[in-house]
Structures are given as structure tokens and as C-alpha cells.
């Protein structure tokens, strides 16, 4: 009956110290902004976030049978950010992931920075950013975009997890990335279905709760850019890194570097940039096309929503 562990909660020991600390630094930087931004809102916000954290924790237990004994359930980052706003969503997910790690050992302590980023910060940013771009639009479009954002948020978590494992020298990128992305492309569909249905339910019963997030106080236009950029990164990086056959040999040799020296992270990052410059021509073209389509779609969405909102 416990929330079944999704393969995103990294336990201790799977990430190198450099990678663990690096992601702690990033996560703490983002969270400290989140705390400052949320503290100033109003005092009612804190108990609300606490209850909402308990809600996400409990909602992760609601599952539905998919096929062959497996079941889908919620991760909740996108949903939390959509109903509470991006900063509050991040803090709520931080509390959830923190308690899961500390109390249930679902995810490690030293690696928690990475877990928070993968499942809390990225999911909230994508969820809210894409949803924010539909402000003032029709409900159907909102639900559609929210559903896509939910799916993409799970993929972002899977991508980040794979990259961290790879940077730590724990896994081979050419195997772990397609495997993680493949599994989570399916898990993400469950996330989409539940998120959309839950939002539709809230629209029907308490639309006033969702309208509160639409005020500029919760998160401005900047979030559309942040959400779009992260989404783009996920959509471009995933096919590039998982289909580039030339990367295969490089990865193996990179991992050789990793086990030897402390300077490894920098070497890895500089080596990693080569696929983007284009050795695997086909994958670059495919990824580029996807990227252009996504940019175009997002630009159209943003310009349309601006038209409907005179300022």
C-alpha cells in the first residue's frame, strides 16, 4: 500500500560525491529563492503548503491497474506547481521527497539534492511554465497543455537521473538513457492521464482554486520562458543522447576517465558537448526538427495568449 518507488528515487551510493554536491548546490540555490519568494506572500500559505505536501504524498498512493499487474500512479510535481504556483510547488515537492528519503529511505540523503532537482524542481518548472502559457485560453487547451507538461516533467526527471548516473560513472549512457526514457515515456502517460483528470475534476467542482494561480503574484511570464527552455532541452537532448551511435564509444572512454580523477566532471562536460556540434548527423537533424516544431508551437501559444490579454 506504500507509494511504490518509481525508478527515479536515487539511493545513496549511486552518485559520485562530486555529482552529489554539485546538484546539492544547484538545488539549494533554487530553493533559497523559492523560500524567499513564498515567505512574503501570506501566513496562510505555509499551512496550505504543508497540507498540499501531505496531499501529494497521499495522492501518490492512488493507483490504477494498467496491464499485467503493473499500475500507474502520480509523481505530482507538475500538478502541484499548476495548482499552487511554481515556487510553492517546488517547496511542496521538496517536503514530499525529503520525507520519503528521510523516513522511508525512498531515495538517499547525500544524493537528495539530485533527487529534489529531478522530481521536484524540474517537474514544477515545466508544469507551471507550460501551463502558464495557456493563461486566458480555453479550458480544453489548458488541460491539453497540462497533460503534455505532466508527461514531459516525468521525462525530464528520467533524463536528469540518467545523466547524473552517467556523470557519476555508475551507468553507461547509451544503455541507461534509452531504458530510463523508454520506461518513463510509459509511466509519463499515467502521469498525464491522472493530472488531466484531476485538473478537470477541480475545474468542475472548485474552479476558484485554480484561478488563484493565475494572478501575477504566483509566477509571471518569465516562467513561460523557463518552462519552454527546460522542455526544449529535454526534447532535444533525449533523442540526441540516446540515438547517437558515435557517442557510444566516447561514453565508454569517458567513463574510464571518470573512475580515475577528480577533474572528471569537467572533462565529461566538454566531451559531452560534441554530439550537439554534430557527429551523428541524422539524430541532430531529427532533434533539430523536433526542437523547431516545439519552439514554433510555444511561440504561437505565447503570442496568442498575449493577444487575448490586453495590458
Amino acid at each position, binding site marked *: 500500500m506504500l507509494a511504490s518507488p518509481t525508478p527515479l528515487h536515487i539511493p545513496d551510493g549511486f552518485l559520485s560525491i562530486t555529482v552529489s554536491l554539485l546538484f546539492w548546490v544547484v538545488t539549494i540555490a533554487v530553493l533559497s529563492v523559492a523560500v524567499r519568494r513564498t515567505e512574503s506572500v501570506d501566513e496562510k500559505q505555509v499551512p496550505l503548503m504543508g497540507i498540499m505536501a501531505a496531499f501529494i504524498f497521499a495522492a501518490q498512493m492512488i493507483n490504477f491497474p494498467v496491464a499485467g499487474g503493473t499500475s500507474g500512479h502520480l509523481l505530482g510535481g507538475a500538478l502541484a506547481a499548476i495548482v499552487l504556483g511554481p515556487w510553492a510547488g517546488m*517547496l511542496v515537492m521538496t517536503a514530499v521527497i525529503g520525507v520519503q528519503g528521510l523516513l522511508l529511505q525512498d531515495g538517499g540523503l*547525500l544524493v537528495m539534492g539530485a533527487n529534489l532537482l529531478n522530481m521536484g524542481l524540474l517537474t514544477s518548472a515545466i508544469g507551471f511554465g507550460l501551463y502558464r502559457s495557456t493563461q486566458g485560453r480555453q479550458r480544453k487547451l489548458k488541460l491539453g497543455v497540462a497533460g503534455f507538461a505532466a508527461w514531459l516533467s516525468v521525462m525530464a526527471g528520467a533524463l536528469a537521473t540518467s545523466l547524473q548516473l552517467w556523470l557519476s560513472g555508475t551507468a553507461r549512457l547509451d544503455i541507461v538513457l534509452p531504458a530510463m526514457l523508454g520506461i518513463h515515456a510509459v509511466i509519463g502517460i499515467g502521469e498525464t492521464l491522472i493530472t488531466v483528470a484531476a485538473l478537470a475534476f477541480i475545474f468542475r467542482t472548485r474552479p476558484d482554486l485554480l484561478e488563484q494561480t493565475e494572478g501575477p503574484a504566483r509566477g509571471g511570464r518569465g516562467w513561460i520562458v523557463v518552462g519552454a527552455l527546460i522542455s526544449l532541452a529535454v526534447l532535444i537532448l533525449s533523442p540526441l543522447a540516446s540515438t547517437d551511435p558515435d557517442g557510444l564509444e566516447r561514453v565508454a572512454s569517458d567513463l574510464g576517465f571518470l573512475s580515475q580523477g577528480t577533474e572528471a566532471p569537467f572533462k565529461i562536460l566538454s566531451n559531452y558537448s560534441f554530439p550537439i556540434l554534430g557527429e551523428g548527423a541524422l539524430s541532430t537533424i531529427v532533434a533539430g526538427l523536433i526542437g523547431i516544431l516545439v519552439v514554433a508551437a510555444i511561440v504561437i501559444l505565447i503570442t496568442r495568449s498575449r493577444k487575448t490579454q490586453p495590458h
Partner: protein
Amino acid sequence: MHANVFDRYHDGSSLLHHLAPTVKVVVAVLFILSNALLPDGDWLSFGISWGVILLLNLLAQLGLGFTFKRSFIVLPFTMAAITALFSLPGETLAVWDFGPWHLVATDLGLVRFLSIVVRSWLSVQIAILLVATTQFPDLIHALEHLRLPRMLITVIAFLYRYLFVLTDEVMRLLRARQARSAVLPGQRGGGGILWRAQTAGNMVGQLFVRSYERSDRIFNAMLSRGYQGHIRTFNRHEVIARDWLIMALAIFLFSILQLFAHL
């Protein structure tokens, strides 16, 4: 079934139970750090670390195998690390061709894979021990002493306080769904996946609305009772000489272990 399955605390009056929570958190994190710093394949040091855990198990009067029995939670994740087998150059142990992948398992890869699994397995045991000997509200206070932002602490405290309430709520929802989902023997029931997902989504939405309305009531109740911003506990929180001593001892031991491992 009641939701107190989340409570991992085992009541006791051992030294470990009485140690200041802040010190326990610091030592547990240091232990995990120490594991991460041990070089691959240093089985002796890993063994000593496990010995320390077994000793602590006894000290906490939980029984020798307490943390071991609960440590298999990390097993599913080792699937992700299994590719470490094929990631290092070295003497070839086995070769598989699996779809587009040419997999060469090497002895160095094997050592790396086993080291990762052992590290995570040791680390999870200390975390299990930490929550088994510390009440969660005390852990929350420890985080406060470790200078986590007050607001985040309060959110976590609320999460823990209402986790049980909302889990009961979920169980009522699940029971209601089950009660309405009769299946005739030999026939497939339950509709399509989309329909099932929609039902689950409605339940999540229902839970959200109930939680949101509950948080309104809670806030009003808090105001009327003069809530001052943090949750109290009767347990002491000052760090006394004994706590400092034990922390110093732990740091000393970890340093010795690292020193020998890297010489």
C-alpha cells in the same frame, strides 16, 4: 489497515535513542559520505563499516539483523547500475550482443558494480537505523538546528502531521472504489485504461479539494489556538557533553577508516 505504517520509530531507551537528534543526523550523513569516499573494491573497509552498523544495531537493542532485513529497498535501483559492469576497460569476463549494444563485462566493471551496490546498501542501513531510533518530530527539530529554513521545516512538520490523516482519506477513497468495482467470475471488469485513469484522476481531484478545504479549517483552528510558528516536542534538544563526545568519536573513526583505505 491504518496509515501508521509510516511510523518507523521503535521505542527504546538505549544510548542511541537518547542521543541528540542533531548529532545522529550529522553522524549518519558522515557515515554515508565515508562510504562514498571509500575506493572501489576495498572490501575490508566496507566490511568494517558493516561491522559498525551491526554494532549499532545491538547498541540500539533492535537485534543484530534489524537494518539488514529492511535494507532490500535499494535492490530495484541496482538495475540502473548494472551497466557499470560494461563501462570500464579491463580483463574481459563475458561478452553479450544484445540488440544494438555490444556488452563487454570486465573485472573492473564487476568490482565497480559491486562497490556501488555495497555502498548504497550500507548507506540505506544507517538511514534505517536513524529513523528507527529517532522520533520523526525530533528529526524535524534536528533539521531546524541544522539551519534549514524555518518555513521549509514548518511545511515538513505539517506534511508529517497530516500525512496520516490524508492517507486515511486515500484509503477510504480506495475502499469506496473497490466496493463499487464488482467483477463477475471469469469476466473482465473495470473498463479500459482511459476510464480507469479517469477514475484515479477524479479521486486525486477529490482528495485535492478535501485537502484544500481541510487546510482552511486547520488555519482557522491554528489562529484560535495561538499557534506560534513551530511544532513542539517534550524531548530535550540541547547538545550535551556526551553527544559531542560521541560525534567526535564517530568523526575520529571515519577519519581512521579513510586514512587506511587511501594509504
